[in-house]
């Protein structure tokens, strides 16, 4: 296509949707793997629950304003078309957002909830009725949210991958790549929030997030490289479209900034910090600055991935 129809707003939306999905997934895992003594990873679970609703909400607002007829956006929910990834995605987003919001409420500290409702009930008298404790819902909500978050994470890639007119997109590896990138950026956002917090990070928390993130990044690498290899061995249209990242205008962005700075460098940093734990059972020597840098690099890399795919894909054609 000569004109780029899907621009930065779509990039942002795909990124933010994936980010929320990743944060929710990781926080849900932390909810399930929480130690019985009540400490452990409940901080990750709580942070995740507090963060998860917002990126996806902002993303949805951006998405709606990107529509040519944003005032008709409700029509997306008057139809369900199984053939259209966007239709499936809209419904997934709606359900996922609702679950993240309920989950947010369920994880609100009791004290803060009471204060908020006290203020609210001064204005709306019946508000107090909704001040209920949902903390017992946390595990069921995580369970319901797992498939939804994975669905939202993968859908952002399916949206592109299902377009057979754009050879750069038209492989299911794009969906997997977007999913694992979403999970990894979710980990990274949690790492950023935890390391920016004045409270020190506990060993178990950082080990939990690092272990997950290292797995996600490695899987991502083993999707990104096969994507290139598979494309080079595919039909001519796909080979031609890969030129965009194999010498074309997105080469630097893909290889250096996404794959290098966005995956390999943060992977190296995380592995390096985990080494003492892996080699001997000695405690982790954790450096907040290093953690935050690795996390920021992952977040930027994830954004670049969406940017490269949305733009390069639209430039590819049969």
């Amino acid at each position, binding site marked *: *296509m*000569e*004109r780029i*129809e*899907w621009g930065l707003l779509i990039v942002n939306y795909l990124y933010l949707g994936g980010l929320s999905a990743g944060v929710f997934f990781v926080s849900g895992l932390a909810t399930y793997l929480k130690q019985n003594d009540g400490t452990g990873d409940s901080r990750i679970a709580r942070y995740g629950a507090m963060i998860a609703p917002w990126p996806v909400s902002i993303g949805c607002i951006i998405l709606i304003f*990107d*529509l*040519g*007829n*944003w005032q*008709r*956006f409700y*029509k*997306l929910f*008057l*139809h369900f*078309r199984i*053939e*259209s*990834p*966007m*239709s499936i995605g*809209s419904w997934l987003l709606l359900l996922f957002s609702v679950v993240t919001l309920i989950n947010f409420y369920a994880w609100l500290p009791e004290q803060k909830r009471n204060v908020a409702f006290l203020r609210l009930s001064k204005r709306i008298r019946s508000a107090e009725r909704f001040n209920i404790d949902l903390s017992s819902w946390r595990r069921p909500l995580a369970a319901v949210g797992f498939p939804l978050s994975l669905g939202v994470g993968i859908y952002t890639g399916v*949206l592109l991958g*299902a*377009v*057979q*007119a*754009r050879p750069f997109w038209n492989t299911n590896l794009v969906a997997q790549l977007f999913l694992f990138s979403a999970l990894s950026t979710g980990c990274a956002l949690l790492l950023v929030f935890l390391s920016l917090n004045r409270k020190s990070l506990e060993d178990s928390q950082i080990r939990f997030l690092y272990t997950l993130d290292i797995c996600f990044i490695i899987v991502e690498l083993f999707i990104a490289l096969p994507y290139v290899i598979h494309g080079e061995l595919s*039909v001519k*249209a796909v080979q031609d479209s890969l030129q965009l990242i194999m010498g074309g205008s997105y080469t630097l962005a893909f290889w250096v900034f996404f794959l290098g700075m966005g995956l390999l460098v943060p992977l190296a940093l995380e592995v390096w910090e985990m080494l003492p734990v892996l080699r001997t059972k000695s405690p982790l020597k954790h450096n907040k600055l290093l953690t935050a840098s690795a996390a920021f690099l992952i977040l930027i890399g994830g954004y670049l991935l969406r940017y490269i795919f949305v733009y390069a894909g*639209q430039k590819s*054609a*049969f």
Partner: protein
Amino acid sequence: MLKKKYTLLIDSKRCINCKACIVACRAENNVPLGHSRLWINEEHRGEWPKISSNFEPEQCHHCESPSCVRVCPTGASYKRPDGVVLINAKECVGCRYCIVACPYNARFAREDLGIPEKCTYCAHRLEHGEPPACVETCPTKVRIFGDANDPNSLVAEMLNTRQYRVHKPETGNGPRIFYLR
């Protein structure tokens, strides 16, 4: 009797690149300047004096299984039983997925209306039994339009007796503009 199946044949050897079809379409459908529902591909080969120029008009192919219709989240893009692919503007949210999904780049976004636009085979003229504006106006009779299911029509005869090809059949859309060889 079989249902109608509107079909466009293009005898591109006759095309002289006069662009009267584009002008007629613009006038008939109020297509805004800067956009066009149809276009003419040009191919120039060789060096003087051994040269050739080929012109090949193109527009929405009104595909057999159109990807624009498949990806539309609201069903605003649809295919009529008579083969014409249309957009129901009232249902369209303006996500532009269809524009991205069309392998022929046959759609463009109307920024003023917030919806995509493309060739409709002049559906409003078909209702009155008139051919699309581009077909009627073409001075060299490049375009042959009609009902492929009507055995007495010229398109049916041409499809049965002439060789033809379609653009990008490998995308699996089943394009239905037939280019005579």
